[in-house]
């Protein structure tokens, strides 16, 4: 009996997609929205988008937090624009940031990772987070993914 080993080379290995890496640290609506828009752009342009949620961005990703009025904050330096921004979201001109991320995942290759250190710090488990979160990762694992990115952002 002979054994045949077949090696399949995927399209991904032959021509890997350019990567966009976003370290998402801020938990304010303005910055989460910016990250959602940028991730959508990356996904639309067929990039592999990896998002690392850490600190305040991770807290914003707790189930239901995005709809909780008490947690709808705008960065302090832009606080005067908060009513305008919230009105744009209310009128559906700008989609809620969680929906932007959800749609980015629908159209492309978008992975959202929770920072393990922040998870431990705040006593969070994966099931406490919105279902857009792909998994938990340490900083080294994320940096390993991000090291050959075409676009790297800290938001």
């Amino acid at each position, binding site marked *: 009996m002979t054994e045949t080993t077949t090696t399949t080379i995927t399209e991904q290995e032959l021509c890997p997609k350019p990567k966009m890496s976003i370290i998402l640290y801020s938990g304010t609506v303005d910055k989460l929205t910016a990250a959602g828009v940028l991730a*959508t*752009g990356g996904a*639309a*342009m*067929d990039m592999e988008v990896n998002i690392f949620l850490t600190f305040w961005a991770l807290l914003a990703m707790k189930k239901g937090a995005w709809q909780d009025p008490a947690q709808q904050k705008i960065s302090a330096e832009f606080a005067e624009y908060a009513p305008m921004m919230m009105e744009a979201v209310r009128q*559906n*001109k*700008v989609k809620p940031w969680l929906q932007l991320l959800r*749609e980015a995942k629908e*159209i492309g290759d978008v992975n959202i990772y929770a920072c393990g250190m922040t998870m431990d710090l705040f006593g969070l488990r994966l099931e406490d987070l919105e279902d857009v979160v792909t998994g938990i990762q340490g900083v080294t694992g994320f940096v390993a993914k991000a090291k050959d990115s075409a676009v790297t952002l800290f938001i």
Partner: protein
Amino acid sequence: MTEFAIDRQIDARGSACPGPLMELIRALKASEVGQVVAVLSSDQGSKVDIPEWVAKAGHKLLAVEEDGGATRFVVQKAR
């Protein structure tokens, strides 16, 4: 305005970036190859973003036309 046989017409006016592009992507996904989608956008970024995406995604941009303060993009699904 040039006339095309349009299979799907989307009015994305008032929707901010990347809303109109997302609507177009969704409509093309739901279309058959050869079908034509027209999207109307008032987002200024669309003028660059939509043609850029159409080229990248390998579809065919049939027309870009100004239409009363908005832009109309006519796209044919090519693959």
